[in-house]
């Protein structure tokens, strides 16, 4: 046992002795909780039954009308929802496709929302897990994807975080694994990407040349078009002597490196959000690392490339969306100082994307509401929820 391990052992033994306050009889506390759960189940069942009655009684026409009205605040040309009962269920990240469609990553699915508000299932059965490679992505399983990115050919890349893989959905709808053999571990430079371990990949971005960059718990890797993985930055335990990559700016300890979020600007520079120390750094196309901003909170999916090539930053620490143009960071929208009318809670951006027509889409992290959801802001400044989880 080394020094850290023995300190940890001592710490845990010590902390376990913290006295526990007596808040009443444990049996009563547990029984109350069991009843609470029971009531919730009853309530949900009653609501579902009532909804079914309403839907049957009034027919689909009402539902269509209602759906169109709800979306009217953000979609200029709403169309009836599809016959399927697809609805959004939380969100972890968003990206905008070339045709202006919004792609939304959820806990175990990817859903496309066309500019007219029509929802389409792209990947995932809705049950978290792994499986389905080589066939239709809608029959495959994902597990807690944290970020999505779109390739130049329309391929959708998904950081399938809890599966320790990056998945790729080709334009014909089939899914495959791009990176990761499912094992959690450090990627090995030069191996076929599908044969290497990777540790909780949480961000993904596509370089101008089509290479896919992936941020995982302590490394930044690149998968080239030949399917080989290249370690770009590895800032591991220095005692193992495996640090790889350019030297770090003085403000950033290599030990604290992670690549929580990634996005390329039009010049081919890669912006990297280092969440563990709240720093944004830039890896230039020439291969040098510089500091862009300190004290900035960027979660996975928190960086994206705008259609004009600038970088959008979902800065959840400042409750703001920022834009970086030619290395200059400015705040576009701050949700604390300018609260959104009709929304009672502050919006905390976890992810952001911009469509070619200037529409901004943002994932609120659900800190205030308990469930993350997507909001949209029109170029004119009008806000509305894209979807609200009931």
């Amino acid at each position: 046992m080394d020094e850290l391990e023995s300190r940890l052992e001592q710490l845990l033994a010590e902390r376990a002795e913290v006295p526990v306050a007596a808040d009443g009889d444990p049996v009563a506390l547990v029984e109350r909780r069991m009843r609470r759960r029971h009531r919730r189940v009853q309530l949900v069942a009653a609501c579902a039954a009532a909804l079914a009655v309403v839907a049957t009684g009034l027919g689909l026409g009402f539902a269509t009308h209602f759906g169109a009205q709800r979306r009217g605040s953000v979609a200029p040309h709403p169309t009836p929802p599809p016959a399927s009962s697809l609805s959004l269920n939380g969100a972890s990240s968003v990206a905008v496709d070339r045709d202006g469609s919004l792609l939304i990553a959820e806990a175990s699915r990817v859903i496309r929302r066309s500019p007219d508000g029509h929802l389409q299932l792209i990947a995932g059965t809705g049950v978290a897990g792994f499986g389905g490679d080589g066939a239709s992505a809608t029959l495959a399983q994902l597990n807690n994807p944290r970020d999505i990115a779109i390739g130049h050919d329309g391929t959708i890349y998904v950081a399938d975080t809890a599966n320790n893989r990056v998945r790729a959905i080709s334009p014909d709808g089939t899914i495959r694994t791009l990176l990761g053999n499912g094992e959690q571990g450090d990627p090995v430079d030069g191996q076929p990407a599908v044969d290497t371990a990777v540790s909780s990949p949480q961000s993904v971005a596509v370089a101008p040349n089509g290479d896919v960059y992936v941020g995982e718990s302590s490394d930044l890797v690149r998968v080239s078009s030949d399917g080989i993985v290249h370690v770009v930055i590895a800032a591991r335990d220095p005692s193992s002597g495996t640090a790889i990559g350019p030297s770090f700016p003085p403000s950033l300890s290599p030990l604290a490196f992670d690549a929580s979020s990634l996005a390329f600007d039009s010049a081919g520079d890669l912006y990297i959000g280092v969440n563990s120390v709240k720093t944004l750094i830039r890896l230039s196309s020439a291969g040098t690392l510089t500091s862009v901003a300190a004290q900035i909170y960027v979660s996975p999916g928190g960086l994206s490339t705008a259609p004009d090539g600038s970088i959008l930053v979902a800065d959840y620490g400042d409750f703001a969306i920022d834009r970086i143009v030619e290395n200059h960071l400015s705040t576009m929208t701050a949700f604390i100082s300018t609260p959104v009318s009709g929304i009672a809670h502050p919006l905390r951006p976890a992810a952001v994307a911009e469509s070619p027509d200037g529409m901004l889409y943002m994932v609120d992290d659900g800190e205030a509401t308990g469930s993350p959801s997507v909001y949209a802001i029109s170029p004119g400044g009008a806000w509305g929820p894209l979807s609200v989880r009931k």
Partner: protein
Amino acid sequence: MDDELAALVRGRYRDLVRRAYLLTGNEPDAQDLVQEALARCCRAWRHRPIEHPDAYLQRTMVNLLVSRARAQRLREIFTNVVPDHAVPDGASERADRDLLWAALQRVPPRQRAVLVLRFYEGLGEREIAELLEVTVGTIRSQSAKGLQRLRRLDIAAVDGKAGHHG
């Protein structure tokens, strides 16, 4: 609740909260975790008595911890500077342990749970794997990852402290 279950809840509650505290890092969350795990245990018990309630409870607490962290994964401690109080003489060791405690809270929940099971409960890799119903390989890598993460955070925290005060 029948007598056997009530005895289990009363008998295990405090000890479970102490263990949960090591997982959550604060007492309200620890109490919440324990109550939810016990409620689930009691519900499951109605169908069939649970053979090893301690293992069931421990596993449920870890799973709840992980799924909650996932649901609230952006909720973070908003201090950039880890706790570093001005304290009288003789307390520097404790301050260091505060730093380590803060660092432990930033280790991903499943890795943290493996570290607690290993270094507090003193369980071996095989026992942890059986308890959490995953492979030994997973435990081994999560343990290594967790320690590695902790080491990095610890070094960064100590460096940060030196930077602020040195």
